[in-house]
Protein backbone atom coordinates (compact mmCIF):
# COMPACT_ATOMS: atom_id res chain seq x y z
CA UNK A 1 0.00 0.00 0.00
CA UNK A 2 1.17 3.44 -0.87
CA UNK A 3 0.56 5.45 2.30
CA UNK A 4 1.76 8.63 0.70
CA UNK A 5 -0.98 8.29 -1.85
CA UNK A 6 -3.45 7.49 0.92
CA UNK A 7 -2.67 10.74 2.73
CA UNK A 8 -2.37 12.87 -0.37
CA UNK A 9 -5.70 11.66 -1.73
CA UNK A 10 -7.52 12.04 1.59
CA UNK A 11 -7.81 15.80 1.07
CA UNK A 12 -9.45 15.61 -2.38
CA UNK A 13 -11.73 12.79 -1.25
CA UNK A 14 -12.91 14.68 1.83
CA UNK A 15 -13.38 17.74 -0.33
CA UNK A 16 -15.51 15.59 -2.63
CA UNK A 17 -17.56 14.51 0.38
CA UNK A 18 -17.98 18.05 1.67
CA UNK A 19 -18.68 19.61 -1.71
CA UNK A 20 -20.48 16.72 -3.33
CA UNK A 21 -21.73 13.81 -1.29
CA UNK A 22 -22.99 15.69 1.75
CA UNK A 23 -24.76 18.62 0.07
CA UNK A 24 -26.22 16.25 -2.51
CA UNK A 25 -27.58 14.01 0.21
CA UNK A 26 -28.87 16.89 2.32
CA UNK A 27 -30.60 18.72 -0.52
CA UNK A 28 -32.15 15.56 -1.92
CA UNK A 29 -33.29 14.44 1.51
CA UNK A 30 -34.91 17.78 2.34
CA UNK A 31 -36.77 17.95 -0.97
CA UNK A 32 -37.57 14.26 -0.84
CA UNK A 33 -39.10 14.60 2.63
CA UNK A 34 -41.35 17.44 1.51
CA UNK A 35 -42.48 15.37 -1.42
CA UNK A 36 -42.92 12.33 0.82
CA UNK A 37 -45.12 14.29 3.21
CA UNK A 38 -47.38 15.35 0.37
CA UNK A 39 -47.53 11.82 -1.04
CA UNK A 40 -48.17 10.30 2.40
CA UNK A 41 -51.10 12.65 2.95
CA UNK A 42 -52.38 11.80 -0.53
CA UNK A 43 -52.13 8.12 0.35
CA UNK A 44 -54.38 8.47 3.42
CA UNK A 45 -56.92 10.63 1.60
CA UNK A 46 -60.45 9.31 1.39
CA UNK A 47 -60.52 10.49 -2.22
CA UNK A 48 -59.81 7.36 -4.27
CA UNK A 49 -58.23 9.24 -7.17
CA UNK A 50 -55.84 11.14 -4.91
CA UNK A 51 -54.80 8.10 -2.90
CA UNK A 52 -54.51 6.08 -6.11
CA UNK A 53 -52.12 8.62 -7.63
CA UNK A 54 -49.98 8.45 -4.53
CA UNK A 55 -49.96 4.68 -4.64
CA UNK A 56 -48.88 4.57 -8.29
CA UNK A 57 -46.06 7.01 -7.62
CA UNK A 58 -44.74 4.98 -4.70
CA UNK A 59 -45.06 1.79 -6.69
CA UNK A 60 -43.12 3.14 -9.68
CA UNK A 61 -40.33 4.57 -7.53
CA UNK A 62 -39.92 1.48 -5.43
CA UNK A 63 -40.31 -0.86 -8.36
CA UNK A 64 -37.51 0.58 -10.50
CA UNK A 65 -33.76 0.80 -9.82
CA UNK A 66 -32.41 4.12 -8.65
CA UNK A 67 -29.69 3.94 -11.28
CA UNK A 68 -32.32 3.62 -13.99
CA UNK A 69 -34.22 6.61 -12.60
CA UNK A 70 -31.01 8.60 -12.62
CA UNK A 71 -30.24 7.62 -16.22
CA UNK A 72 -33.76 8.35 -17.44
CA UNK A 73 -33.53 11.88 -16.09
CA UNK A 74 -29.96 12.65 -17.21
CA UNK A 75 -29.50 10.62 -20.39
CA UNK A 76 -33.12 9.96 -21.34
CA UNK A 77 -34.87 13.29 -21.03
CA UNK A 78 -32.62 15.10 -23.57
CA UNK A 79 -34.19 12.83 -26.18
CA UNK A 80 -37.47 14.62 -25.60
CA UNK A 81 -35.82 18.01 -25.47
CA UNK A 82 -35.35 18.33 -21.72
CA UNK A 83 -31.70 18.86 -20.90
CA UNK A 84 -30.82 19.02 -17.22
CA UNK A 85 -27.30 19.51 -15.83
CA UNK A 86 -25.68 16.76 -13.75
CA UNK A 87 -26.24 18.33 -10.34
CA UNK A 88 -29.93 19.19 -10.74
CA UNK A 89 -30.48 15.82 -12.43
CA UNK A 90 -29.00 14.05 -9.45
CA UNK A 91 -31.00 16.10 -6.95
CA UNK A 92 -34.21 15.50 -8.88
CA UNK A 93 -33.63 11.76 -9.13
CA UNK A 94 -32.62 11.33 -5.50
CA UNK A 95 -35.49 13.52 -4.26
CA UNK A 96 -38.02 11.57 -6.27
CA UNK A 97 -36.52 8.36 -4.94
CA UNK A 98 -36.52 9.48 -1.31
CA UNK A 99 -40.05 10.79 -1.86
CA UNK A 100 -41.26 7.32 -2.75
CA UNK A 101 -39.62 5.47 0.10
CA UNK A 102 -40.14 8.09 2.79
CA UNK A 103 -43.79 8.49 1.80
CA UNK A 104 -44.41 4.93 2.92
CA UNK A 105 -42.52 5.54 6.15
CA UNK A 106 -44.52 8.66 6.92
CA UNK A 107 -47.77 7.03 5.96
CA UNK A 108 -47.06 4.10 8.27
CA UNK A 109 -46.09 6.52 11.03
CA UNK A 110 -49.34 8.47 10.61
CA UNK A 111 -51.31 5.23 10.75
CA UNK A 112 -49.40 4.14 13.85
CA UNK A 113 -50.69 7.09 15.88
CA UNK A 114 -53.58 5.64 17.91
CA UNK A 115 -57.07 6.49 16.70
CA UNK A 116 -57.77 8.00 20.12
CA UNK A 117 -55.45 10.85 19.21
CA UNK A 118 -57.55 11.77 16.18
CA UNK A 119 -60.63 11.49 18.37
CA UNK A 120 -59.20 13.68 21.10
CA UNK A 121 -58.36 16.25 18.42
CA UNK A 122 -61.90 16.11 17.06
CA UNK A 123 -63.27 16.24 20.60
CA UNK A 124 -61.62 19.58 21.26
CA UNK A 125 -63.16 20.82 18.03
CA UNK A 126 -60.43 20.29 15.46
CA UNK A 127 -61.13 19.60 11.83
CA UNK A 128 -59.35 16.70 10.16
CA UNK A 129 -56.63 18.97 8.82
CA UNK A 130 -56.10 20.72 12.13
CA UNK A 131 -55.84 17.39 13.94
CA UNK A 132 -53.44 16.09 11.30
CA UNK A 133 -51.22 19.14 11.53
CA UNK A 134 -51.16 19.75 15.27
CA UNK A 135 -51.79 16.35 16.82
CA UNK A 136 -50.97 13.54 14.42
CA UNK A 137 -47.98 14.75 12.38
CA UNK A 138 -45.86 15.82 15.37
CA UNK A 139 -46.29 12.34 16.80
CA UNK A 140 -45.81 10.66 13.43
CA UNK A 141 -42.61 12.65 12.97
CA UNK A 142 -41.23 11.13 16.13
CA UNK A 143 -42.18 7.63 15.09
CA UNK A 144 -40.59 8.27 11.69
CA UNK A 145 -37.15 9.17 12.98
CA UNK A 146 -35.64 5.66 13.03
CA UNK A 147 -36.85 4.55 9.58
CA UNK A 148 -36.16 7.96 8.04
CA UNK A 149 -32.64 7.91 9.43
CA UNK A 150 -32.19 4.63 7.66
CA UNK A 151 -33.47 6.20 4.46
CA UNK A 152 -30.98 9.02 4.89
CA UNK A 153 -28.08 6.66 5.53
CA UNK A 154 -28.98 4.71 2.40
CA UNK A 155 -29.17 7.95 0.47
CA UNK A 156 -25.69 9.02 1.55
CA UNK A 157 -24.32 5.81 0.09
CA UNK A 158 -26.54 5.97 -2.99
CA UNK A 159 -25.16 9.40 -3.90
CA UNK A 160 -22.12 7.50 -5.22
CA UNK A 161 -24.32 6.62 -8.21
CA UNK A 162 -24.26 10.30 -9.18
CA UNK A 163 -20.68 9.74 -10.30
CA UNK A 164 -22.20 7.93 -13.27
CA UNK A 165 -23.89 11.10 -14.45
CA UNK A 166 -20.74 13.16 -14.04
CA UNK A 167 -21.45 14.75 -10.66
CA UNK A 168 -18.15 15.36 -8.89
CA UNK A 169 -18.91 13.84 -5.52
CA UNK A 170 -16.53 11.79 -3.41
CA UNK A 171 -16.69 8.57 -5.37
CA UNK A 172 -16.04 10.28 -8.67
CA UNK A 173 -12.97 11.91 -7.12
CA UNK A 174 -11.84 8.47 -5.97
CA UNK A 175 -12.35 7.08 -9.46
CA UNK A 176 -10.35 9.90 -10.99
CA UNK A 177 -7.44 9.51 -8.60
CA UNK A 178 -7.55 5.73 -9.02
CA UNK A 179 -7.49 5.97 -12.79
CA UNK A 180 -4.55 8.34 -12.64
CA UNK A 181 -2.52 6.38 -10.07
CA UNK A 182 -3.74 2.89 -10.97
CA UNK A 183 -4.18 2.25 -7.20
CA UNK A 184 -7.75 1.02 -7.43
CA UNK A 185 -7.82 -1.04 -4.25
CA UNK A 186 -6.40 1.77 -2.12
CA UNK A 187 -8.68 4.49 -3.43
CA UNK A 188 -11.89 2.47 -3.35
CA UNK A 189 -11.18 1.20 0.17
CA UNK A 190 -10.40 4.73 1.23
CA UNK A 191 -13.70 5.93 -0.21
CA UNK A 192 -15.48 3.03 1.49
CA UNK A 193 -13.91 3.98 4.81
CA UNK A 194 -15.10 7.57 4.52
CA UNK A 195 -18.64 6.44 3.70
CA UNK A 196 -18.49 4.14 6.68
CA UNK A 197 -17.37 6.88 9.06
CA UNK A 198 -20.13 9.20 7.84
CA UNK A 199 -22.71 6.46 8.38
CA UNK A 200 -21.35 5.62 11.83
CA UNK A 201 -21.73 9.23 12.88
CA UNK A 202 -25.24 9.31 11.47
CA UNK A 203 -26.37 6.15 13.20
CA UNK A 204 -24.96 7.28 16.53
CA UNK A 205 -26.91 10.50 16.16
CA UNK A 206 -29.98 8.47 15.24
CA UNK A 207 -29.81 6.38 18.41
CA UNK A 208 -29.59 9.49 20.56
CA UNK A 209 -32.51 11.23 18.89
CA UNK A 210 -34.64 8.08 19.11
CA UNK A 211 -34.10 7.76 22.83
CA UNK A 212 -35.11 11.34 23.43
CA UNK A 213 -38.22 11.27 21.28
CA UNK A 214 -39.66 7.93 22.24
CA UNK A 215 -41.20 9.25 25.43
CA UNK A 216 -43.39 11.78 23.68
CA UNK A 217 -45.28 9.24 21.61
CA UNK A 218 -48.63 7.69 22.51
CA UNK A 219 -48.17 3.95 22.93
Amino acid at each position, binding site marked *: MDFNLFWSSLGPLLLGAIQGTIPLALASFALGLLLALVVAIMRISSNKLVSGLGRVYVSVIRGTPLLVQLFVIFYGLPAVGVKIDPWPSAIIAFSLNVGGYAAEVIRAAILSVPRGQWEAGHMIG*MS*RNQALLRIILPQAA*RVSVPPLSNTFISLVKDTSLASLILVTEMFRVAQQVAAFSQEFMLLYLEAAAIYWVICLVLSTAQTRVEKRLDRYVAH
Partner: protein
Amino acid sequence: MLPTDKLPVEPVLQVRGLSKSFGSNQVLRGIDLEVPRGKVVALIGPSGSGKTTILRSLNGLETPDAGAVTMGARDAAPSGRKGAEKPLTVDFGAASPSKKERARQLAALRDRSAMVFQHYNLFPHKTVLENVIEGPVYVQKRPRAEAVAEAEALLARVGLLEKKDAHPFELSGGQQQRVGIVRALALKPQLLLFDEPTSALDPELVDDVLAVIKELAEEGWTMVIVTHELAFARQTADEVVFMDDGVVVERGPASQVLRNPKEERTQAFVRRLLHEI
Protein backbone atom coordinates in the same frame (compact mmCIF):
# COMPACT_ATOMS: atom_id res chain seq x y z
CA MET B 1 -68.60 27.50 36.07
CA LEU B 2 -72.19 26.97 35.08
CA PRO B 3 -74.97 28.52 37.12
CA THR B 4 -76.69 25.97 39.30
CA ASP B 5 -79.95 27.84 39.75
CA LYS B 6 -81.65 26.90 36.53
CA LEU B 7 -85.33 27.58 36.89
CA PRO B 8 -86.93 26.15 33.80
CA VAL B 9 -85.37 22.71 33.58
CA GLU B 10 -84.88 22.66 29.85
CA PRO B 11 -83.14 19.61 28.47
CA VAL B 12 -79.55 20.16 27.51
CA LEU B 13 -79.68 16.93 25.59
CA GLN B 14 -82.45 15.09 23.89
CA VAL B 15 -81.91 11.89 21.95
CA ARG B 16 -84.65 10.27 19.90
CA GLY B 17 -84.56 6.84 18.33
CA LEU B 18 -80.81 6.61 17.99
CA SER B 19 -79.75 3.53 16.00
CA LYS B 20 -76.39 2.33 14.84
CA SER B 21 -75.01 -0.81 13.28
CA PHE B 22 -71.45 -1.88 12.74
CA GLY B 23 -71.80 -4.22 9.79
CA SER B 24 -74.50 -6.71 10.70
CA ASN B 25 -74.12 -5.98 14.40
CA GLN B 26 -76.80 -3.57 15.56
CA VAL B 27 -75.37 -1.90 18.66
CA LEU B 28 -78.07 0.72 19.18
CA ARG B 29 -81.74 -0.07 18.61
CA GLY B 30 -83.70 3.13 19.00
CA ILE B 31 -82.36 4.85 22.07
CA ASP B 32 -84.24 7.73 23.71
CA LEU B 33 -82.48 9.84 26.27
CA GLU B 34 -83.11 13.15 27.94
CA VAL B 35 -80.76 15.04 30.19
CA PRO B 36 -82.12 18.16 31.91
CA ARG B 37 -79.79 21.01 32.64
CA GLY B 38 -77.61 20.40 35.67
CA LYS B 39 -78.50 16.74 35.90
CA VAL B 40 -76.25 13.71 35.82
CA VAL B 41 -77.24 10.59 33.94
CA ALA B 42 -75.28 7.39 34.44
CA LEU B 43 -75.35 4.82 31.66
CA ILE B 44 -74.72 1.34 32.97
CA GLY B 45 -74.89 -2.09 31.42
CA PRO B 46 -72.74 -4.97 30.26
CA SER B 47 -69.91 -4.42 27.80
CA GLY B 48 -71.17 -4.29 24.27
CA SER B 49 -74.55 -2.97 25.33
CA GLY B 50 -74.02 0.23 23.33
CA LYS B 51 -73.34 2.72 26.13
CA THR B 52 -70.06 3.95 24.71
CA THR B 53 -71.50 4.18 21.21
CA ILE B 54 -74.18 6.55 22.47
CA LEU B 55 -71.58 8.74 24.08
CA ARG B 56 -69.39 8.74 20.98
CA SER B 57 -72.37 9.63 18.83
CA LEU B 58 -73.09 12.62 21.04
CA ASN B 59 -69.57 13.88 20.47
CA GLY B 60 -69.70 13.24 16.76
CA LEU B 61 -67.13 10.45 16.90
CA GLU B 62 -69.65 7.99 15.49
CA THR B 63 -72.34 8.72 12.96
CA PRO B 64 -75.58 6.97 13.89
CA ASP B 65 -77.69 5.44 11.13
CA ALA B 66 -80.96 6.87 12.39
CA GLY B 67 -82.35 9.04 15.13
CA ALA B 68 -81.94 12.62 16.17
CA VAL B 69 -79.82 14.43 18.71
CA THR B 70 -80.89 17.81 20.03
CA MET B 71 -78.61 19.91 22.15
CA GLY B 72 -79.97 23.00 23.86
CA ALA B 73 -78.90 26.54 23.19
CA ARG B 74 -75.68 27.30 24.93
CA ASP B 75 -75.33 30.30 27.16
CA ALA B 76 -72.05 31.47 25.76
CA ALA B 77 -70.35 30.27 22.65
CA PRO B 78 -66.64 30.40 23.38
CA SER B 79 -65.77 29.49 19.85
CA GLY B 80 -68.03 32.14 18.40
CA ARG B 81 -69.44 29.61 15.95
CA LYS B 82 -72.61 30.87 14.39
CA GLY B 83 -75.89 29.40 15.54
CA ALA B 84 -74.70 28.37 18.99
CA GLU B 85 -77.36 30.52 20.61
CA LYS B 86 -80.10 28.33 19.12
CA PRO B 87 -80.85 24.69 19.95
CA LEU B 88 -79.15 22.32 17.57
CA THR B 89 -80.80 19.26 16.12
CA VAL B 90 -78.94 16.75 14.02
CA ASP B 91 -81.24 14.27 12.33
CA PHE B 92 -79.18 11.26 11.37
CA GLY B 93 -82.10 9.55 9.72
CA ALA B 94 -82.61 12.29 7.16
CA ALA B 95 -81.35 11.67 3.65
CA SER B 96 -77.62 11.68 4.09
CA PRO B 97 -76.27 15.18 3.59
CA SER B 98 -73.08 16.04 1.77
CA LYS B 99 -69.85 15.13 3.48
CA LYS B 100 -69.18 18.76 4.19
CA GLU B 101 -72.61 19.32 5.71
CA ARG B 102 -72.25 16.22 7.87
CA ALA B 103 -68.84 17.34 9.08
CA ARG B 104 -70.37 20.70 9.97
CA GLN B 105 -73.13 18.99 11.97
CA LEU B 106 -70.68 16.82 13.88
CA ALA B 107 -68.52 19.85 14.59
CA ALA B 108 -71.58 21.66 15.94
CA LEU B 109 -72.27 18.75 18.32
CA ARG B 110 -68.66 18.85 19.51
CA ASP B 111 -68.93 22.56 19.98
CA ARG B 112 -71.42 21.93 22.77
CA SER B 113 -70.11 18.78 24.35
CA ALA B 114 -66.75 17.62 25.61
CA MET B 115 -65.63 14.11 26.31
CA VAL B 116 -63.39 12.41 28.82
CA PHE B 117 -61.97 9.24 27.35
CA GLN B 118 -61.43 5.88 29.00
CA HIS B 119 -57.78 5.91 28.00
CA TYR B 120 -57.40 9.67 28.59
CA ASN B 121 -56.06 10.26 25.06
CA LEU B 122 -53.92 13.15 26.19
CA PHE B 123 -51.57 14.56 23.57
CA PRO B 124 -48.23 12.98 24.49
CA HIS B 125 -46.12 15.56 22.68
CA LYS B 126 -47.64 18.45 24.60
CA THR B 127 -47.27 19.48 28.22
CA VAL B 128 -50.19 19.32 30.62
CA LEU B 129 -50.90 23.02 30.16
CA GLU B 130 -50.61 22.78 26.38
CA ASN B 131 -53.03 19.87 26.40
CA VAL B 132 -55.57 21.97 28.22
CA ILE B 133 -55.27 25.18 26.20
CA GLU B 134 -55.02 23.54 22.78
CA GLY B 135 -58.78 23.67 22.23
CA PRO B 136 -59.46 27.08 23.74
CA VAL B 137 -56.54 28.78 21.96
CA TYR B 138 -56.20 27.04 18.60
CA VAL B 139 -59.76 26.00 17.95
CA GLN B 140 -61.88 28.50 19.85
CA LYS B 141 -59.40 31.33 19.18
CA ARG B 142 -59.62 32.71 22.68
CA PRO B 143 -56.81 34.96 23.93
CA ARG B 144 -53.93 32.84 25.08
CA ALA B 145 -53.40 34.66 28.39
CA GLU B 146 -57.02 34.18 29.31
CA ALA B 147 -56.97 30.50 28.36
CA VAL B 148 -53.78 29.93 30.35
CA ALA B 149 -55.23 31.62 33.43
CA GLU B 150 -58.37 29.51 33.22
CA ALA B 151 -56.40 26.34 32.61
CA GLU B 152 -54.20 27.03 35.61
CA ALA B 153 -57.20 27.64 37.82
CA LEU B 154 -58.75 24.36 36.69
CA LEU B 155 -55.49 22.46 37.16
CA ALA B 156 -55.19 23.91 40.65
CA ARG B 157 -58.66 22.64 41.44
CA VAL B 158 -57.71 19.06 40.62
CA GLY B 159 -54.40 19.42 42.44
CA LEU B 160 -52.18 19.35 39.36
CA LEU B 161 -51.02 22.92 38.95
CA GLU B 162 -47.44 22.02 39.80
CA LYS B 163 -47.53 19.45 36.96
CA LYS B 164 -48.50 21.97 34.30
CA ASP B 165 -45.15 21.76 32.53
CA ALA B 166 -44.90 17.98 32.77
CA HIS B 167 -45.62 15.69 29.85
CA PRO B 168 -48.35 13.06 30.13
CA PHE B 169 -45.84 10.20 30.34
CA GLU B 170 -44.58 11.66 33.60
CA LEU B 171 -48.02 11.40 35.23
CA SER B 172 -49.87 8.51 36.83
CA GLY B 173 -53.04 7.27 35.18
CA GLY B 174 -55.16 9.07 37.75
CA GLN B 175 -53.32 12.31 37.15
CA GLN B 176 -53.63 11.89 33.39
CA GLN B 177 -57.36 11.38 33.71
CA ARG B 178 -57.72 14.48 35.86
CA VAL B 179 -55.92 16.40 33.12
CA GLY B 180 -58.36 14.80 30.67
CA ILE B 181 -61.22 16.19 32.74
CA VAL B 182 -59.63 19.63 32.88
CA ARG B 183 -59.08 19.57 29.12
CA ALA B 184 -62.79 18.90 28.66
CA LEU B 185 -63.82 21.61 31.14
CA ALA B 186 -61.57 24.17 29.48
CA LEU B 187 -63.69 23.91 26.34
CA LYS B 188 -66.63 25.30 28.32
CA PRO B 189 -69.04 22.70 27.02
CA GLN B 190 -72.65 22.61 28.09
CA LEU B 191 -72.56 18.85 28.31
CA LEU B 192 -69.77 16.68 29.73
CA LEU B 193 -69.45 13.12 28.52
CA PHE B 194 -67.46 10.55 30.49
CA ASP B 195 -66.61 7.26 28.82
CA GLU B 196 -65.75 4.82 31.60
CA PRO B 197 -63.40 7.40 33.08
CA THR B 198 -61.93 5.11 35.71
CA SER B 199 -61.91 1.68 34.12
CA ALA B 200 -58.33 1.97 32.83
CA LEU B 201 -57.04 3.07 36.24
CA ASP B 202 -55.33 1.13 38.97
CA PRO B 203 -57.84 0.63 41.78
CA GLU B 204 -56.05 2.93 44.20
CA LEU B 205 -56.23 5.82 41.72
CA VAL B 206 -59.94 5.56 41.01
CA ASP B 207 -61.18 7.54 44.00
CA ASP B 208 -59.32 10.75 43.17
CA VAL B 209 -60.88 10.85 39.74
CA LEU B 210 -64.36 9.99 40.98
CA ALA B 211 -64.09 12.72 43.62
CA VAL B 212 -63.42 15.29 40.90
CA ILE B 213 -66.40 14.13 38.85
CA LYS B 214 -68.61 14.18 41.92
CA GLU B 215 -67.58 17.73 42.65
CA LEU B 216 -68.50 18.75 39.12
CA ALA B 217 -71.89 17.13 39.53
CA GLU B 218 -72.49 19.09 42.73
CA GLU B 219 -71.47 22.23 40.93
CA GLY B 220 -74.26 21.77 38.46
CA TRP B 221 -72.55 20.54 35.32
CA THR B 222 -74.76 18.53 33.01
CA MET B 223 -73.16 15.14 32.49
CA VAL B 224 -73.61 11.74 30.94
CA ILE B 225 -71.36 9.14 32.50
CA VAL B 226 -70.77 5.63 31.25
CA THR B 227 -69.51 3.73 34.25
CA HIS B 228 -69.18 0.39 35.97
CA GLU B 229 -68.79 2.01 39.38
CA LEU B 230 -72.25 1.40 40.78
CA ALA B 231 -71.61 2.96 44.17
CA PHE B 232 -70.36 6.09 42.43
CA ALA B 233 -73.37 6.11 40.13
CA ARG B 234 -75.72 5.84 43.09
CA GLN B 235 -74.09 8.74 44.88
CA THR B 236 -73.62 11.00 41.89
CA ALA B 237 -76.24 10.35 39.26
CA ASP B 238 -79.73 11.78 39.26
CA GLU B 239 -80.86 9.15 36.84
CA VAL B 240 -79.49 5.75 36.01
CA VAL B 241 -80.15 4.22 32.63
CA PHE B 242 -79.54 0.49 32.32
CA MET B 243 -78.85 -0.71 28.80
CA ASP B 244 -78.47 -4.15 27.36
CA ASP B 245 -78.07 -5.25 23.79
CA GLY B 246 -78.66 -1.82 22.30
CA VAL B 247 -81.87 -0.95 24.12
CA VAL B 248 -82.72 0.88 27.32
CA VAL B 249 -83.99 -1.82 29.66
CA GLU B 250 -84.73 0.32 32.66
CA ARG B 251 -84.31 3.88 33.80
CA GLY B 252 -85.13 5.85 36.89
CA PRO B 253 -83.72 7.50 39.97
CA ALA B 254 -80.32 6.10 40.84
CA SER B 255 -81.31 4.61 44.16
CA GLN B 256 -84.30 2.86 42.67
CA VAL B 257 -82.60 1.34 39.63
CA LEU B 258 -79.56 0.22 41.59
CA ARG B 259 -81.27 -0.88 44.81
CA ASN B 260 -84.64 -2.13 43.66
CA PRO B 261 -84.44 -2.76 39.94
CA LYS B 262 -87.73 -3.81 38.38
CA GLU B 263 -86.39 -5.62 35.36
CA GLU B 264 -84.87 -9.04 35.66
CA ARG B 265 -81.93 -8.15 33.44
CA THR B 266 -81.10 -5.14 35.59
CA GLN B 267 -81.31 -7.25 38.72
CA ALA B 268 -78.95 -9.82 37.28
CA PHE B 269 -76.46 -7.17 36.16
CA VAL B 270 -76.46 -5.28 39.45
CA ARG B 271 -76.17 -8.50 41.44
CA ARG B 272 -73.25 -9.65 39.32
CA LEU B 273 -71.34 -6.38 39.70
CA LEU B 274 -71.97 -6.23 43.43
CA HIS B 275 -70.72 -9.76 43.87
CA GLU B 276 -67.50 -8.88 42.15
CA ILE B 277 -66.72 -6.36 44.84
